């Protein structure tokens, strides 16, 4: 072989290598300096905690500056601040967009024998078809018991749907102007990239038979639905409660009939709308927690009454996360008070909810 060519080639390669990369290597150790991680000292922490225990809500917080962004974020007007509302029978706010907490079926996955085994495999190739295109859910970043249609463009996301109210001088009912809110758009199951589009090819190995589906927790009376639309808004409810209490002239609980299935379902749904398990660990998603709390007559939560009564299926740590998610659900959706029949206060004064995430695990 031609020595000249060899030398030339070697020189070329060396030159390229040097020119391209010679200057860029770091032969020094990567910056892996171990960084001290220290917990705040007990004294420091105590000091901080002490300060933290100052009144949490000052009426006019001294240090609070006006936000520097010119348009302050629209703050939801507290219904309490409104003048005593009159029952509005024309357009009652509809708090229940989805009256049915229909149990979600496992995604339709008919088991289909694809074809006789080509090779002498022990098992036939079995595959599961994804949902057909018509029922193809479209991806959204929220998964809810039932799909929620895209919200009106101006609505800001809120778990509690509120119709837009604009200032209208001729209106009979005076209400503060408020932004329309609507629940965020949601699908009822996770749509992975692999499930999008119209790829109908079988994509899965046979999986063990799903365990037999559990009996419906409660047979829902069909009448329940007709019940819902006539519900007064929470604030109306509060007024009714007060009126009732006054009229009856008793401080003690009226012994009303027990809650109907529909009323229980409404309450269940009210909490489930805020029960977000999207940020729970897989362990916490296998933990059932029972949370107890008490309600005031107006449906608001008695401060400090929330507690975890029981947990099962996960570690203590997982139970803590599961409880925190449940607590957030109860507090968040109950921020304006739960809508429950006032005459049955004795039946819902204390509530225990079992949060079972089993069916939320593989959505």
């Amino acid at each position, binding site marked *: 072989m031609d020595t000249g060519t060899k030398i030339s080639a070697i020189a070329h390669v060396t030159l390229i290598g040097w020119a391209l990369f010679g200057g860029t290597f770091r032969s020094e150790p990567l910056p892996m300096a171990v960084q001290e991680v220290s917990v705040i000292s007990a004294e420091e922490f105590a000091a901080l905690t002490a300060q*933290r225990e100052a009144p*949490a809500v000052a009426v006019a917080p001294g240090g609070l500056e006006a936000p520097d962004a010119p348009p302050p974020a629209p703050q939801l007007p507290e219904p309490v601040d409104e003048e005593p509302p009159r029952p509005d029978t024309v357009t009652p706010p509809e708090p229940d967009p989805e009256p049915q907490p229909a149990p979600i079926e496992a995604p339709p996955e008919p088991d289909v024998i694809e074809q006789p085994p080509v090779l002498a495999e022990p098992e036939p190739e079995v595959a599961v078809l994804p949902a057909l295109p018509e029922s193809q859910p479209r991806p959204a970043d*929220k998964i809810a018991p039932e799909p929620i249609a895209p919200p009106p463009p101006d609505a800001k996301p809120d778990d509690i749907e509120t119709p837009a109210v604009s200032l209208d001088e001729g209106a009979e009912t005076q209400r503060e102007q408020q932004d329309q809110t609507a629940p965020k758009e949601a699908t009822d199951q*996770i749509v992975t990239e692999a499930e999008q589009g119209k790829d109908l090819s079988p994509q899965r190995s046979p999986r063990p038979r799903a365990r037999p589906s559990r009996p419906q927790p409660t047979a829902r009376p069909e009448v329940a639905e007709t019940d819902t639309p*006539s*519900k007064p808004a929470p604030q109306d409810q509060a007024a009714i409660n007060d009126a009732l209490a006054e009229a009856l002239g008793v401080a003690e609980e009226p012994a009303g009939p027990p809650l109907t299935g529909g009323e229980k379902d409404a309450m269940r749904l009210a909490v489930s709308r805020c029960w977000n398990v999207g940020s729970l660990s897989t362990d916490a998603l296998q933990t059932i927690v029972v949370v107890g709390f008490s309600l005031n007559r107006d449906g608001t939560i008695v401060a400090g009454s929330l507690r975890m009564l029981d947990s099962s299926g996960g570690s203590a740590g997982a139970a803590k996360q599961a409880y925190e998610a449940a607590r957030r659900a109860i507090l968040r959706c109950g921020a304006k008070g739960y809508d429950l029949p006032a005459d049955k206060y004795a039946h819902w004064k204390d*509530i225990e909810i079992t949060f079972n995430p089993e069916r939320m695990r593989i959505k």
Partner: protein
Amino acid sequence: MMKLLTSLLVGLTLLSAPASAQTGPLRLELDQGIIEPMPFAVPNFVPDTPAAAQYAADISRVIAADLTGTGLFREIAPEAFISRVNSFEAPIQFADWKAINADALLTGAVNLSGNTLTVRFRVWDVFSGQELGNGLQFSGPTDGWRRMAHKVADQVYGRITGEGGYFDSRVAFVSESGPKDQRRKRLAIMDYDGANVQYLTDSAAIVLAPRFSPAGDRLLYTSYESGRPRIYLLDVGRVRKQELKTQDGTMSFSPRFSPDGRSIVYSLTQGGNTDLWKMDLASGQSVRLTNTPAIETAPSYSPDGSRIVFESDRSGQPQLYVMPANGGEATRISFGQGRYGTPVWSPRGDLIAFTKQNKGRFHIGVMRVDGSEERLLTASFLDEGPTWSPNGRVIMFTRETQGASGRSSLYSVDISGRNLRPVRTPDGGSDPSWGPLLN
């Protein structure tokens, strides 16, 4: 009043509930909830001195990006804030954060003293007004500010989700540039989020498929440096490499560490046949684990080191098999249609991620270790080579686009199939290997 009547009517009609004692609590069971990113707020951390202001802002942004990037959290834009946090010690105005629907709030402060940064923070559950965990602080040199931010984000993630985070970790990968038929490949390492890319080899030789050691201090990879594929062991800190010798005339590739980091399992090709072997790193001695005329490659240890999952075409096309770590009878676990490859055991041990090729499409999927509950997470022209985040929650992989201008890049996806997103790298990227959480 309508309401009362209706309720009464309903109650009478259905005779639904027995007239039980009114004294017990109302018991309900919920099995339906929602799955959506949790809204959180991260007001800029409070700088103790003006000199710390830039760090405070940057750290806050990295934390927010870490959390948002998981798909489990959604940051509330600072413009929406009602309260400002001007002091780390001041009481939190929870009503202001409730009003903007923040479920969680992160407050913090940054101190700069000489070359040392100290970050203090607290995590709050807004609706209950309670602190999640205790206040904590991290200290370190200023040039490690990103790591400090990642550490804070790991804490926040852990306190809210209940599982370990993965932000303070690194990814080894192959940086790719140039056209498809002249592609230049260099071994590189970066933070999990694509920051701080450093190159460990030049592009004179093709490099493939790096794998982190369990401790994250070494890398195994395959290089054509000698003219044929050979396995190299690289000390990450010193950027010093050594070839792991195998017999002359053979090709060795597809190396993976055992969980104790003392041995590796790899593919050795003799003649046209590829089998799995195991090498003790101290002695350099290898023993054969499989002995078939089929191709056996892409092995991966179970986290307890007792089993190996690998890819073999002994049935006619590539499928996944599990065998004892010292060899022996292998059990096929993949039975769906198509070809299965590159199985990777999850750090928790309960799942196996894999590449699936079916009807001209590639998928990244997960299945249980017995092959059940297969679930495909992605679909594209070419996806391959999954690697697990240290907490087993996220999978990073290679996605290559089609055609003459096809380009290779890194993507990540949550194991639920949500939150598919590209990982930014300076050039193209392939063959990611996610390292452990740093100390």
